């Protein structure tokens, strides 16, 4: 058990120490961005990696939560903490309704419908100017806890993000090993058998959807507090695609994969913005290259490499890639 926890503890500790060694707040903020992205990617991984449901509208969860907290704490007049809690609850409620639509399909249908659902909320954010500020978004979102915890300081905010990330890793790590987590992967591989064994496939998928929504909402809250600003761009197709890239590049279905993928994508995006303008094109090429070269992602690729190097067993174990759902 501890051998599994150790690498994550080391990674989190290293990230927490960035403020102590970094020369400028830039690196501290970059680390916060990685942590926030990782929380979102961990959430999406529940769907993509473990439920076999490929969502192309994941940004709707962080987007809803960020917009709700921004609106409630600026226009609505709530204090930041209550606004945050209400936003979390509101996002889960809307997500529950979305689940009724999205979970009627699987496969490519699910891809298209999740994208459409995200577009609905994007459309409201972009066009319903009187409430959402339209393309200008909502700014001046206050960070919570000013009296207790100096969250306006980058390093303190980073530590908050890392606490949430640690919580996400713990909760999801336990979930994936639990009876329900195993059953979730069962519905991914053999949904027909699962219902014949007495499992309620829809309800298991619903739990996965709500877990993904919950961690997505947590990431959205931190995002809104980090930037103190929200705009419709956080729900654009590219935003959902970026989270998907994190999961797939790192390794869908693994716990460390989304973390590594998030770090890679955030760093790549920041580096790219320094040297070249063409982030979207780079994103596109990264997708194509990953599909052609490394379809399972970094973490499974690494495991396979290690297995090949060790050559202790006559044959390397097949990678634990999520399988396509078998039914129609």
């Amino acid at each position: 058990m501890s051998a599994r926890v150790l690498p994550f503890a080391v990674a989190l500790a290293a990230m927490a120490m960035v403020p102590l060694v970094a020369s400028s707040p830039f690196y501290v903020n970059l680390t916060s961005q990685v942590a926030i992205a990782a929380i979102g990617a961990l959430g999406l991984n529940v769907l993509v990696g473990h439920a076999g449901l490929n969502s192309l509208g994941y940004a709707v969860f962080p987007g809803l939560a960020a917009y709700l907290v921004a609106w409630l704490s600026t226009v609505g007049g709530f204090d930041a903490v209550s606004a945050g809690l209400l936003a979390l609850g509101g996002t889960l409620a809307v997500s529950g309704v979305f689940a009724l639509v999205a979970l009627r399909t699987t496969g490519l249908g699910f891809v298209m419908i999740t994208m459409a659902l995200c577009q609905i909320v994007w459309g409201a954010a972009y066009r319903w100017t009187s409430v959402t500020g339209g393309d200008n978004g909502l700014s001046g979102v206050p960070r919570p806890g000013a009296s207790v915890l100096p969250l306006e300081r980058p390093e303190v905010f980073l530590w908050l993000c890392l606490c949430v990330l640690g919580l996400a890793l713990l909760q999801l790590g336990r979930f994936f090993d639990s009876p329900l987590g195993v059953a979730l992967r069962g519905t991914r591989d053999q949904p027909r058998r699962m219902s014949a064994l007495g499992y309620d496939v829809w309800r298991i998928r619903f739990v996965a959807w709500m877990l993904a929504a919950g961690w997505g909402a947590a990431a959205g809250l931190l995002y809104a507090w980090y930037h103190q600003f929200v705009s419709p761009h956080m729900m654009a197709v590219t935003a959902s695609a970026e989270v998907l890239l994190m999961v797939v590049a790192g390794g869908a279905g693994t716990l460390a994969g989304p973390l590594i993928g998030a770090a890679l994508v955030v760093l790549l995006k920041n580096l790219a913005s320094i040297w070249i303008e063409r982030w979207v094109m780079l994103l596109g090429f990264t997708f194509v290259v990953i599909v052609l070269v490394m379809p399972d992602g970094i973490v499974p690729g690494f495991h396979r490499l290690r297995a090949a190097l060790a050559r202790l067993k006559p044959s390397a174990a097949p990678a634990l890639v999520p399988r396509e759902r078998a039914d129609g």
Partner: protein
Amino acid sequence: MTFWVSQSLNALALGGLLFMLASGFSLIFGLMRVANLAHGALFMLGAYLGLAVVKAGYGFWTAALAAAVAVGLLGGVMERTLLRRLGGRTLPQVLMTLGLAFIIADACLMMWGGDPMRLPPPPELSGAVRIGDAVFPRYRLFVIGASAAVALGLWLLVERTRAGAMIRAAVDDVGMARAVGISASTLFTAVFCLGTALAGLGGVIGGPILSVYPSLDQDMLPLALLVVILGGAGSLLGAFVGAYAIGFIYTFGQVLVPDLAYVILFLPMIAVLSVAPQGLFGRRLG
């Protein structure tokens, strides 16, 4: 009354454009189980290519033909070199087509810049005609007619020709189609070319109405998906009904409730899905 007539004609024109976009998507989906998420980007590429040809001094019709052929060829190359390797797995396919969409969209931005541009309609179709009390741009009437002609042509192709019979057979059962000697490989590429060429053509035809701008792809792709979800994937009739339904809802929504038109657009999708997950005329999406 005038309002309703002219808005209905607008809705028919938008519906026609959406049909050109969505019918290709739907054909490709039905035949190959590929959701080509680059379809919106190819539509936009068609519009930009058409604009470039017009700017180079050739006529609108040449531009439409050139864009359709170029985009269709690009689609064929994409299918042959990249999509074919993926063997129908959902996630790689989504990533690949999305990646291509991003590359194409960003390349357009690089080549043609960020400012919206207007693609002028051909001179013989500029100006307006009077219908009762309403004055209506002649070009929009042309779009209504042209898209109806494309719909008829596609229907004849699929239902009345040998190639169409092969397509229908392969949609039902690829293995069986192979067994009776249909070259699925050639057929797939041909349909991919046809579907993407329609998107390119739609881009040029739509240019004078929608104008040509960098996020055109991101505006069009969700509409195409919406049409396909609503009408049912793989069904030409579904794409037809879905496209005109969306055309009407969007046009009237924008005039009557501009703030929420985009949200209202998705209500029929939710209504249809809750009754029939496979869409109005489709087979199951799973």
